[in-house]
């Protein structure tokens, strides 16, 4: 497999600026990191540090002002089916049923309808929405909507799953359940994805989920630190070691 020669994802000196009336506003400054298979990386930073912009550049939805993003050694494209995205606002199409939303990426890949249905069923079951195939997004609660978002991303069987604050518009209890489910999916070798890259502003969430946490400073977003979280799983939030990590990252941001 050609992936062996390269890391899965390489973010090479990515900078991003906006120009307003000839004035330059720098948002991201020389971001550089790599992701390999089996990685679970969280990007943490205060609001306004450009972490969502960075994620959009990484999946190819936005172009960097300078620098480069390589996926398996090639420049990233937004429609790359090896990379899937989960949105903070769920971004479900309100006029499509749960099953049709999950089939979206497969339809773009021109899979035949029977296969599409089978794959969608598999992932709807995997996120625990069996029986809701024909419901419309508006009939679902926030947690269920995000499950659909996750199933839709997994259905194209991506190597890399990118998530933009996926739990921040959910209530605390639902968010915690979904975090555990994401970990389960990620550690299940039969199911995608190989690696996860997640943006969050919650330090606790990052320490709970990630192998590696990349800390960004605000305006412009610079990499402050890259930390390996070597706590054993399942992690316990009451653990003093857990809190040691949270405090360390907190002090890095403030």
């Amino acid at each position, binding site marked *: 497999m050609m992936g062996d020669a390269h890391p899965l994802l390489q973010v090479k000196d990515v900078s991003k600026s906006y120009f307003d009336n000839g004035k330059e506003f720098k948002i991201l400054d020389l971001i550089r990191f790599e992701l390999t298979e089996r990685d679970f990386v969280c990007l943490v930073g205060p609001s306004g540090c450009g972490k969502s912009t960075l994620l*959009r550049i990484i*999946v*190819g*939805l936005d172009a960097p002002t300078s620098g480069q993003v390589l996926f398996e050694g090639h420049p990233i494209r*937004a*429609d790359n*089916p090896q*990379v*899937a*995205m989960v*949105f*903070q*606002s*769920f*971004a479900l*199409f*309100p*006029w*499509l049923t749960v099953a049709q939303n999950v089939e*979206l*990426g497969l*339809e*773009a*890949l*021109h899979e035949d*309808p029977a296969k599409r249905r089978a794959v969608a069923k598999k992932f709807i079951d995997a996120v625990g929405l069996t029986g809701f195939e024909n419901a*419309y997004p*508006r*009939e*679902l*609660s*926030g*947690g269920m*909507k995000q499950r659909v978002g996750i199933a*839709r991303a997994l259905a*194209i069987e991506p190597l890399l799953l990118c998530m933009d604050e996926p739990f921040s*518009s*959910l*209530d605390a209890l*639902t968010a915690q359940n979904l975090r555990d489910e994401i970990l389960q999916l990620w550690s299940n070798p039969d199911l995608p994805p190989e690696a996860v890259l997640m943006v969050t502003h919650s330090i606790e969430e990052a320490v709970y989920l990630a192998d590696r946490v990349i800390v960004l400073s605000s305006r412009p977003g610079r990499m402050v630190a890259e930390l390996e979280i070597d706590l054993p799983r399942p992690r316990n939030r009451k653990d003093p070691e857990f809190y040691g990590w949270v405090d360390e990252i907190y002090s890095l941001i403030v």
Partner: protein
Amino acid sequence: MRGLRGRLRILAGILIATGVGTAIAFPDAARTAAILPVLALFSISRMVAAYLLSLVFAISYGHTAATNKRAATVLLPIMDILQSIPILGFFPFVIAFFVQGPLGDLLGSEIAAVFLIFTSMAWNMAFGVYESITTLPADLDQAARSFGLVGWLRFRLLAFPAMVPKLVYNSILSWTNGWFFLVASEIITTPSKNIVRPGLGSFIFLAGNRGDLGGIAVGIACLATVVLLLDIFLWRPMSVWSERFRIETTAAGERASLHVPSPYERLRWLPRFSRLRREVARRVQPLLDGYARSSAKLDRVYSSHRRVIRAVRRADIGLFLAIFVIVVATGLVGVVGFFLRPLPSGAKDLPVAAAFSFLRLLLAYLSALAWTIPVAAWLGRSKWAARFVTPAFEISASIPATALQPLIIGFAVAITMGGYFAGEIGAYLVSLFAMQWYLLFNLIAGVRSIPGDLDEAARAFGLRGRTYWRRLLLPALVPSLATGSITAWGAGWNALIVAEYLQFGRSVYSVTGLGASLFQATVVTGDYAMGYLTVLAMTVVVLTLNKLLWRPIYKRAAVKYRMDV
């Protein structure tokens, strides 16, 4: 539901019995009534033809304007101008173009009518499409891009569904506009001849010419019935259906409603014909399968030949621009030609005519405001009124002002005993009827959109009477008042064209104004140069009012009095 259906049967029975009875008692009237459905069919086919054209046009025009920045620099101003000018003023020239061309009276006048209705329907729909695409939430767009939805697939799954709510809403508006112009387009008068096309509009008009009040009433009733039936069986279900396509702006996990209503839920009491429907569904299924197959094929073709498709689209827009440049150039040459020749003798009267027309509309507008604001405040807040009174207004509003014209002038003649003021009162009333409904329904919507907590807060702090109006109701109504006023004035200018020159029986009631000058020039004297000049004057007045008065007001209202805090 059973009881309701039973009562319905009794009602239908009574209606049929009365109908048969009347037919036996008045055989002449019955003969007239018998051709009404046929006439209605003629009128509806014109509307449908114009609507289908508008639909295709609006989608492609709005979509291009929203997605292609270079094209938008040209397409947007055109849309803006054509949406606001009184297109009825251009009708005589459109007729001259089509009827005097090689097409002949029959085909030419039909095409001219459909064209006129089309221009009255297309622009607000195109604008709706444009708005839906440009206000598409960024996250949906990004989701579509990251899952590789491009070309036809993107249009089918994202762009088209997103435009459905505004397209349906604007279709309803367009049909209301369309009826107004349909009635005006079925009688075509040129200096040399009158062309009468069969339809409800011409039926009403001819009855007016005969001074036959019964005929007018029957014609108007029939038109109102058609409009209402279409509303009940087509547009209301469509707008319920379009709710499914509404994009929720709240990202938070609140459930909007658990239940997605079926379009025909409110008509459940109608017979279902389940066997017939199953049969039809069975026959239609191969068509649907065919559609699915061909759209899959189209997706594939589209994605494998992107360069060809881009070239086609460029050529398409290029062609449009070329035609546009040619049209503008000829128009400019024409205008320059005008001013090189001595102006028509009537030209010096135009400023006075414009002032009279404006004052007439202003009077109609102010009287419309005077009654619609209090009525809307009452209708918007009372459940009982909304249930029983609003439908009555909706029925009255469904009759286009052009159809009421013979009735209004008949009334004006009766109260003034045929004096000069019959024309003035007639023109004023026709304008009033064209303007008032837009104000009323926009204001009702405005009252309903006042958030409940604001209303409760006002009451909790003891705001009552004048203070309540001054501090809550009137400020909250400003945005809907602005929208309603723009639409009302647009409709008013169009109405003026038919309102200032009214015929009843053998008499003509004409007043001083741009509408009357236009009629005089294009129909009576056949002085087309003067006609052009009048339309030009009217367009200039309307565009100036829009740019200097309405737009600034609207912009301020939109910023200052918005409710979405």
